[in-house]
């Protein structure tokens, strides 16, 4: 499932700046699993410390979504 969502704001012919194109917003995993079920798979302790969570189901990598479009 794609967690980074996007939409295109309306751009009027009278707007002063060139259109930004797509606007992005993040919808991370806690929105879809509001209560953690028991016995989910786990990362190794070392990996968990690096990622910030023990649970792959709740890991969400983030990067600047605008950069991918060459901005």
């Amino acid at each position: 499932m794609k967690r980074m969502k996007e939409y295109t704001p309306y751009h009027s012919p009278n707007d002063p700046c060139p259109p930004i194109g797509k606007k992005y917003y993040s919808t991370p995993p806690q929105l879809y699993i509001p209560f953690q079920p028991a016995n989910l798979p786990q990362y190794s302790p070392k990996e968990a410390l690096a990622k910030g969570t023990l649970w792959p189901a709740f890991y969400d990598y983030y990067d600047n979504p605008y950069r991918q479009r060459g901005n």
Partner: protein
Amino acid sequence: MWLYEKKLQYPVKVSTCNPMLAKFLVEQYGGADGELAAALRYLNQRYSIPDKVIGLLTDIGTEEFAHLEMIATMIYKLTKDAKPEQMKQAGLDAHYASHDSALFYHNASGVPFTTAYIAAKGDPIADLYEDIAAEEKARATYQWIIDMSDDPDLNDSLRFLREREIIHSLRFREAVEILKEERDRKVFF
């Protein structure tokens, strides 16, 4: 009572000399949705919330101080070697005039920290929803800083902090479910 461990929760490494990033990061230091506001909000709410979720607020509130310390380290590393001229170029001239390179609890626009940022309604559901919103706002702040930062090492630490906001949000959502006392009950509609 607290025990202090003399290490950061996650390593902080800054690889490029870009004091302007300090200007952005201070939002998470003394801003409305920053780590100080979060720590004080949760630790204060503990006294007027059902027993079942006090421990959660203690844990998360404590961790927010560990995050505050990471942010402080980032700001310190970015500004400690900046000369007045570099502070000026980074847009930190007003900060320098008032504080030199000392850290101060204000937001990215220089507005000093205020306890008005901290909500405590006394209603457990209202307060927990406030906490969920605070975590999502802090997550968004980290995203916006990552979007503007081109320092891969700094972004690595910021990604860790963002992930923690996600987990905190999840735990507060679970706390709401626990207080609803509807779990493990068969519900027919």
